[in-house]
């Protein structure tokens, strides 16, 4: 016996009325009902941030943004796939930041909108990974990049906070900037540097690697 003996729920996905078993995710329910779906589908494990859907449940007034591969269909649910936003307009290259003492000033030059944060909390509320996004932006704004970046460990760059930000701050890119400069300027592992030197000087080599060709 397969799915047909299970109770089916009624959902509306992208305007299409669908009946599906409640064990399916929004994406699977769409496929189950015979509708093709390619855009917005990614890892199907909740780590790539592709499948953003607007969801309204039968007993709720509000609309939430969730991941279509992680949200199971429920009776009376309405779901709609979000178009992926354009890439952020913020541009920078780590190699162009010559002096790390200048980092704080550079940050505000690259992300000028951060100063306009209204503290509306929209970014934090929307985050499917429960990151305190707004606090991360505030920390980065103060130049506390290590602290800010550590808040974004689980960020999957789904851009929901970016869509939700009225000031176009691109909070997830702020978080990623904070993480990247921390590695770029402050990570100098001595065990790695020592090994690189051993390889550079020819102290460590591979022997006997041509014999099997």
């Amino acid at each position, binding site marked *: 016996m397969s799915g047909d003996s299970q109770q089916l729920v009624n959902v509306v996905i992208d305007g299409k009325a669908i009946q599906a078993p409640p*064990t399916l995710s929004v994406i699977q329910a769409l496929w189950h009902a015979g509708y093709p779906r390619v855009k917005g589908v990614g*890892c199907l494990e909740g780590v790539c941030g592709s499948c953003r859907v607007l969801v309204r449940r039968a007993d709720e007034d509000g609309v939430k943004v969730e991941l279509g591969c992680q949200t199971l269909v429920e009776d009376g649910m309405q779901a709609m796939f979000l178009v992926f936003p354009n890439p952020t307009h913020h541009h920078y290259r780590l190699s162009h930041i010559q002096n790390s003492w200048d980092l704080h000033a550079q940050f505000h030059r690259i992300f000028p909108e951060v100063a306009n944060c209204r503290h509306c909390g929209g970014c934090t509320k929307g985050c499917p990974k429960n990151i305190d996004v707004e606090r991360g932006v505030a920390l980065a704004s103060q130049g506390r990049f290590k602290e800010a970046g550590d808040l974004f460990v689980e960020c999957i760059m789904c851009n929901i906070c970016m869509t939700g930000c009225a000031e176009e701050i691109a909070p997830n890119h702020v978080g990623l900037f904070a993480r990247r400069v921390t590695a770029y300027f402050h990570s100098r592992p001595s065990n790695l540097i020592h090994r690189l030197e051993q390889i550079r000087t020819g102290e460590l080599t591979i022997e006997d690697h041509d014999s099997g*060709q």
Partner: protein
Amino acid sequence: MGSKSISYEQALADYRVEAERPLIEQHDNKEALLSAYHPDYRADTMTTLKVGPNSGDQCHRQVAASIQADARIDEADLAGASVVETDVLVIGGGGAGCAAALVAAVAGARVILATKLRLGDSNTVMAEGGIQASIDKNDTPQMHYDDTLAAGHGYGDRSLVAQMVMDGPDVIRWLIQQGMQFDTDEFGDLLTRRAGGTSANRVCYYRDYTGLEMMRSLREAVRNSDAEVWEYSPVVELMVNEQGHCAGAVISNLKDCSYVQVIAKSVILATGGIGRMHLNDFPTSNHFGATGDGLVLAYRLGAKLRDLDSFQYHPTGLAHPHHLAGTLITEGVRSAGTWLLNGNGERFVDELKPRDVVAAAILKECAEGRGIHTNDGAQGVWLDTPGLELRNPGILKQRFPKLLNLGKKAGIDPHTSPLLIYPTLHYQNGGVAINENGETTVPGLYCVGEASGGIHGKNRIMGNALLEIISFGRRAGAHAAERRSLRGHKRVSIDHLSRLRRELTISNMPMETKGPMLFPVCAKFDDDVDYEGLRRNRRK
């Protein structure tokens, strides 16, 4: 699944958590177990290739059907297609493609990176374990080299492996320079941990998110580079010049259903693996886009492939509930001492044996009626997480937060209920044959990452995949960039398709299947009314 097997509900009702369980069967005869139950060894899954550069070689039946399929397009489709020229065309937006594009762009080449979905949509982002690099004081590149070849049962290409292991430390440095973080000790030194089947602590990592951390750094770096990124742009065919060398690709734009011909001095295939082909109907841990497109495109152009009979099935993929089927449960859970139990509550294999052996033992239990089946068609055996928790109180919360998170999504609490698991298709060990620069046997065509073959032989150890994509991605990017000073192609076409169709006809091969596959069957891409551009060209 035999009718003999035990139902999920029954098995769950019978399940008792116990502190001690004897191991019933040792499986001392590893070869016999593998040849009887491992999918790679089953005679009915293999076939002999009839056309192309690997004619006569053994190949998995589904992969063979795919690389010997007819093309999606013909001359007529190119009539209205616009033409764009570049130095380097990178196909694929995972870790390997991004590394290649970044290095080529920095070297001064004009670069286009075309990816089927979004930049970063790849298996890279899902990698949990880490990346191998010999950095520990008790480790050497030589040991890394020896471990890699031994794990591959001696089938790896020695000079490729030697080069990759020597690249290891510099790959880590390069990744830090792209803004990637690694876990370090109180002094800032890199932490390393041990992978199964290796002789030293060699896996560098960032928590259980190594791939995610790598991919988001590289994606941001590519976005801020001079490389042009084309998203939703699957490649449907490669193009050749007057000498039969690779000269570019035909790219399909999913947004406006049009074709674009990209004429390039060099093309770098970085299209990833084949998990979503669901070989032998196995679930997969792979990304939605892992449909083996690069293999098909390269083979048609005359590139030699290797080790196409070897795939990795990870023993512990979640089998229930349905919407999470195939999701990987990290090897660390077994390393910590979790048992595998059949439907009768018996242990049937030493859980710490190599992946291929454990996977085969699970398949044997299911085949002989001691498996557990659900009413929506799944089957598997128990991963006894409550037993682990009983013997080590608190371990699940402390060491496996990601597993508990998975449990939450599944509606199953691993503290009190075992998880149904079944082997999941995880990795393509072989692929397109390459040299030290990532060059295939076709001039102008490069291949890097999981789509290429030679590093892992017939079996891969944890952490070598992430090293390979960056090591060879950078090398191919640098080498391809140098070719920008070559003279342009005189004539660019898809003439190689006439040869393909002639050979298919002579060999009496079916012409109904079109390739590359582009998207998994479940997505019904070829019926997708939103994407008429490709559907129109299906000669049904």
